[in-house]
C-alpha cells in the first residue's frame, strides 16, 4: 500500500517517510504540489491511500494541491492530511473546507502522527489491500 509524502524539505520528507515505512507503507515522494499531481497521474491504477501535504511549497502550494485532488473524481479515495507549520485556526478551517481530511501542525510528536493515521483508518493491513 502506497503513501505519498509531499514537502519541499527533503529532511521532512525523509522523517515522514521513515515513520510511514515503519508502519508498512511503500512511500512515494514529491517536492511540490505539481510534482505530486504527476506522481498521482502515473500511479492511477495503484493510487496511494494517503498523501501528507505541506502547505508552503514552491511551484504549487499544498492548498492548491488539495483543491486539485478534490476536483478530480478519480482521486477521491486518496486521504489527504495536511502536515504543515501553518498554525492559525483560520488556515486549518480553510484547508478542511478545501477538502483536507486531517491537519497536523508542525512540530508534532511521532505519537500524534500515528494517532491521526489510526483515526483516519489508513493503516496498511486494514481496508483495501
Amino acid at each position, binding site marked *: 500500500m502506497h503513501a505519498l509524502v509531499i514537502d519541499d524539505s527533503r529532511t521532512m520528507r525523509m522523517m515522514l517517510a521513515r515513520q510511514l515505512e515503519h508502519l508498512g507503507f511503500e512511500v512515494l515522494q514529491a517536492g511540490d504540489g505539481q510534482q505530486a499531481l504527476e506522481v498521482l497521474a502515473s500511479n492511477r491504477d495503484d493510487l496511494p491511500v494517503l498523501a501528507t501535504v505541506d502547505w508552503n511549497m514552491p511551484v504549487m502550494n499544498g492548498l492548491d494541491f488539495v483543491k486539485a485532488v478534490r476536483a478530480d473524481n478519480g482521486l477521491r479515495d486518496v486521504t489527504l492530511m495536511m502536515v504543515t507549520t501553518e498554525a492559525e*485556526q483560520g488556515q*486549518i478551517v480553510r484547508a*478542511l473546507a478545501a477538502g*483536507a481530511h486531517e*491537519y497536523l*501542525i508542525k512540530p*508534532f*510528536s511521532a505519537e500524534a502522527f500515528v494517532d491521526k493515521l*489510526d*483515526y483516519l483508518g489508513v493503516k496498511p493491513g486494514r481496508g483495501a489491500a
Partner: protein
Amino acid sequence: MSLSSQSFAYVADLVRREAAIVLEPGKEYLVEARLQPLARAHGPAGIDAYVAFLQSPGGYGARAEVVEALTTNETSWFRDREPFDVLVSHVIPDLLARTATRRKITVWSAACSSGQEAYTIAMLMAEHVVPRGWQVEILATDIAPGMVARTREGRYSQLEIGRGLPAPLMVKHFQRVGTQWQVSDQLRSMVRAQVLNLAAPLPLMPVFDLVFLRNVLIYFDQPTKRSVLGRVRKAMSPEGYLFLGGAETTLGIDESWHRTPVGRLTLNRPGPPATAATGAAPAAPAAPPPRTFSGVSPATRQKAI
C-alpha cells in the same frame, strides 16, 4: 545523587497510604526521576536529605507534592478510540431512551488527568445529546490538584492538542490563544472539576449514568481495585455503564458487575441488562459501526427515540 533503599521504602509507603498507588521495588528510577526536581527546589542537600525532611513535622505540604509527583498523568483525546465509538453507537442511544423523562445524563470521569477524557465526552455529548434538549453534567475528578486545575482551565499546548483530536473537532471546539488551545465555553460549562481520592470514601455525589474509570486501576493492588469498584458501583444508576481502560477488567475482581461484550470491548453495568423502557435501544450486542471520518458516527445511524 541516588536514592537509598530506606528513602524508597518511605516514599513507596507514603504514596500507597495516600493514593493507593503501588510502587514495586524496581521502580526506584521512577521515584528518583520524579523526586529530583522537588529535591532540587528544596535545597542543595540531595534527594535522601529531602526524603528525611518529608518525614519531619514540617514536611506535610511537601508530602502532598510528592504524592502528586508520583502520579502518572499520561492521557490523550479519544484514547483507544473504540470506547468512544461504542459510547456513540450503543450507550448514548440506550441512555437517551432511559432518561427520556428526566432528560439529563450525568457522567463521571473518575481519574481525569488534564481533562482530555472529560472534554472528549463533552464533545460527543454536544454532538449527540445536547441538541435533543438533554442536560449533561460531567464531573471530572483526580487526586492531583494540579491536574484538576488544568482540567478546569481547559488549555492545551500544540503537542497535547495534536494527540488524538481530529482537526475538524479541534477547530470546532477550541480557540487558539497564543501558543495554546482553549476549550470552548460550551464544553467547559458541561464539566465540573474537583479533587477526589478514589481510594478513600467517596463524598456525596450525584447518581451517575456513565462512569469512565480508565487507566487508573492499573496502579492499585487487588483489594484496592475491588473496593474502588465497589464504591463506584454504589455511585451509579443500576442501568448505567462503566468504561475501564484497555488493560483493566472487573473479571475476577468484582463479580457483581454485569458484563456485555460489544465488539472487542466489554461494557460493565451495575445491574442486569434489561430491555429499554421505551424506544429502540440495541437489543443484541453487535460490532461497533465502522469508524467515520468526523470521529462521530452520524446521529441517524441509530434512532434512539
